[in-house]
């Protein structure tokens, strides 16, 4: 028997491949609700395969709880696959938008805002008569840092997207779906066993 490693609560990424069916988002999220597990972020988009959606769900859990949760997600009929990743097994990104009044930019004699945008590798998405919109991609800590620094100029609106991530796994979705075709075709051997 291995000595058990401490199973601390930490960030996991659950990546779910599903058929594109209405109501499935609800079916997936109630699995979390029932267990009183908070979803840190959730993103749904079409995957590289037509008709297959990819959910990227971020949760803070112990591995044991996360594994049990993933098994419950797999039970949903239209779920093709659900995969559990530690944070470091993925490459991930988020997008943030900041609405800031135009006024400070017009009087930025020290280039403070310009330097801020350069340092954070952010960009100006749009300039309107009253405000500008700044866009930044990055991890949560990075988009949060820019938010903190922009506060001095008045951020009238701030939004951050759900995390999207790509796993380091070599698995190819197309190949995975082919395997599923075989697995799902398997029927019970009951008939052969009769007497």
């Amino acid at each position, binding site marked *: 028997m291995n000595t058990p490693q401490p199973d601390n609560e930490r960030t996991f990424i659950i990546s779910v491949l*599903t*058929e594109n069916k209405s*109501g499935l988002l*609800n*079916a997936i999220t*109630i699995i979390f609700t*029932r267990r009183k597990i908070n979803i840190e972020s959730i993103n749904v988009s079409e995957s590289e395969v037509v008709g297959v959606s990819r959910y990227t769900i971020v949760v803070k859990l112990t591995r044991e709880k996360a*594994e*049990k949760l993933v*098994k*419950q997600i*797999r*039970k949903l*009929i*239209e*779920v*093709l696959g659900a995969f559990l990743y530690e944070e470091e097994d993925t490459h991930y990104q988020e997008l943030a938008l900041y609405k800031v009044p135009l006024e400070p930019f017009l009087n930025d004699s020290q280039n403070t805002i310009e330097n801020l945008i350069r340092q954070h590798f952010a960009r100006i998405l749009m300039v309107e008569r009253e405000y500008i919109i700044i866009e930044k991609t990055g991890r949560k800590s990075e988009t949060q840092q820019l938010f903190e620094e922009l506060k001095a100029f008045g951020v009238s609106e701030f939004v951050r997207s759900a995390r999207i991530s790509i796993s380091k796994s070599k698995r190819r979705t197309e190949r995975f*779906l082919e395997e*599923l*075709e075989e*697995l*799902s*075709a*398997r*029927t*019970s*051997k*009951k008939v052969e*066993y009769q007497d």
Partner: protein
Amino acid sequence: MQTLQAKSDKETSVKQDPISGSEAVLRCLIEEGVETIFGYPGGAIMPIYDALYGYADKLTHILVRHEQGAIHAAQGYSRVTGRVGVCFATSGPGATNLITGIADAQIDSTPLVCVTGQVASPLLGTDAFQETDVIGISMPVTKWNYQITNVDEIPAVFAKAFFIAKSGRPGPVLIDITKDVQNAMMQFSYKKCEKIRSYAPYPKPTQQSLQDAAELINTAKKPYILVGHGILLSGAQKEIVEFAEKAHIPVASTLMGLSAFPTDHPLYVGYLGMHGNYGPNIKTNECDVLIAIGMRFDDRVTGNLKTYARQAKVIHIEIDPAEIDKNVKTAVAINSDAKEALHELTPLIKKQSHTEWLQEFRDCDKIEHDKVIQHALHPETGKLKMSEVVNVISEMTNGEAIVVTDVGQHQMATSRYYKFKVTDSNVTSGGLGTMGFALPASMGAKLGKPDRQVIAVIGDGGYQMTVQELGTIMQYNIGVKIVVLNNSFLGMVRQWQQLFHEKRYSFTEMTNPNFIKLAEAYSIPAEKVEQRENLKAAVQKMLDAKGPYFMEVIVETEENVFPMVPAGASVTDIRLE
């Protein structure tokens, strides 16, 4: 000429007159071999009922008295026949009344297809009359659900529904059909569903897991088998006997597994769990290899998980991967249908003998017999006891009846003392513990197996939760034998109040109606038994009755069911008194 003839034949076979969505629903059911439907009409399902009027020769519909009765009847039907139970309800309250039964079927893995009417699709989301979001409400308690808003979807959705309900780990499916779809016309053709790419119901047991399991079993000194509902669902009754006999391993059963293994088999050691037998509970913590087959380590079986079978290497044969390592850590998991796993595993097992180990169970039986069973079955004074009533019924039916139980003390007494000799004979609400289950479930069981004796054993509390189904029993002359064990208490709650709440009997005492008059009001012959000396004759009269029959037995008011593993305690902390 020949070509022309062939062409016209083909056309007639393909081109049929269009039919309504409602008729298509019934045609789908016939294609799936459905014979009996339990249901209750209402506004949003009226087109389907109208179509049913013309299908009376092909489909039997049983009009229940409440939708909960319909779904429990469908469950009872399914549990004794192994077929998919079907029920109909209207939108709104009709559909919500099904929910308890759907949740019950989900947790007890019972295949059902529930069809609910829905308001016309333009009215969806407008708070129309009798509109409820049934898809949303039933989502957490169904294996699958779907709302049909396009008439052409009907055949494919029904085919999928039956396939999902029945395959793999079975469960309830709900199809919600808007009223406009029921009235719309379509060209009908049907193809059974054989596969859904996102759903693999029959995982293949790996060679590695089979070999690992065989090695553990072949070197075990004190192996122990726990059988569950999965044996019955997979039809592995023969395989489990062969497996247990070859390796000479004691077999205990969960509540849902009762009747999967014959109680008179020399290797059968009894019933597991909170009110299970003494040996089967305490030996869980003494065995070296625990082989759990088609069961899910419910908390009523395991008690405190921290002290459950920690010394044992656990082999778990289970079709649902989510159940593996959920409650109990396994040494070897065989993820497959129980029948297939046993068929593959038995040839790898050495012929063995574990006589001394089996004797340890028998020694426990002696202790339990002296401290509990003897007093439970053969009291000489005082009021009748539930246990002795069940024992008399068990003896007089030779353990060959289908026994349907509700929830509570009578259920535990029946599970302990009815000696099942025939498989697929135990119908009870296990996981959900639904009071009111037994009476309607017994109707379904009798309609499913009309040639067998079907006895519903119910407490006075649960009986009154669905007692209106006496109307259904009367209308269709369903020959169920109803036994109400009346202690004028919600007995199990009262027992807990006595043991854990200083006898503070908070709202558990019941003033009951005259049950005999009530049965007679429904033209059901009835007898009340109060004296021990009258019991056998009354049971015989009941068993001999041709049609439905009601027997009320006045039992001891403050009888407790023992043994008992208190909630959250270890299985070794089982109390005999």
